[in-house]
């Protein structure tokens, strides 16, 4: 039996893109499969390069190295580890916004 898939809509600097993403698939990977190239380095949910902001819907993170309740409260997501749990809309390219958010809360902000 195939896994359930959800519609993912990304607001990128190059415009809006949408594609399907399986519930067990990382959104970054699904975007890549659909030729949407997003920034990322570690692919471990740590470096914040892939950061996005959840505008609608819910996601679950797959064992991110560092993801804090404060991040979730501000709707920041790590696309390299985030999996959709509903249809979602996400603003991409939020790495510096998320680093500044982390710095303001005295939380780790790699590359900042």
């Amino acid at each position: 039996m195939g896994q359930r898939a959800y519609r993912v809509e990304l607001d990128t600097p190059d415009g809006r893109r949408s594609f399907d993403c399986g519930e067990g698939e990382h959104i970054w990977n699904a975007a890549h499969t659909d030729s949407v190239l997003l920034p990322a380095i570690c692919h471990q949910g740590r470096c914040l390069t892939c950061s996005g902001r959840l505008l609608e819907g819910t996601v679950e993170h797959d064992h991110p190295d560092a993801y804090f309740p404060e991040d979730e409260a501000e709707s920041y997501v790590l696309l390299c580890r985030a999996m959709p749990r509903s249809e979602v809309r996400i603003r991409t390219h939020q790495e510096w916004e998320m680093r500044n958010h982390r710095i303001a809360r005295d939380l780790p902000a790699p590359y900042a």
Partner: protein
Amino acid sequence: MATAETVQPGDVTQRVGVEVIRARGVDVDKLIKMLVANAAEFASTYYYYTILRMNLAGHEDYKEICEDARLEDRAHWELIVPRIYELGGHLPNDLKEFHDQAGCRAAKLPDPPTAVNILTLLLESERCAIRSWSAVCDMTFGKDPGTYDLAAWILNEEIEHEAWFIELLAHERDKKSIPSGHFRRGEPGEAPYSKNRGFYNP
């Protein structure tokens, strides 16, 4: 803002070596942050790989390969730290602050510490290093030959390390042969591409 041409004779507040690469389009501040983050990974890796190595008893071949990776990551640390200072940057004075800057997951001993779990961890650590040094190469290619050369040497060895751990994990977990092309280092942690200053760092 100074340029390579306008740095005044005797001025120790500006660096021609920085301004020439800035003029070629390198975001020097961002580059320094990336190098500090990558240096933090090496410091962390050297520490945690020491523990991983200690827990590979009974797998002496794996232990020796882990030792090569451990020592070569130390060589990478010593290769890149001087470059941070040459560019006008510095290491954080606080070790926790430094550790938090690392862009890759700390290679903490897995639970349970089986050979498969340790090799999996080693493999993913090397993969993260490849990604982070590829980013430095992309940022400096054709613009900052000094940093690029260092990053490329390091990247070559991280790619070798990945191949080693693919080979060992495939053997240990999957009973498969996926040769890495590994030959024994002339000495443990020889770092054939990146070991600089052999006299200073014997």
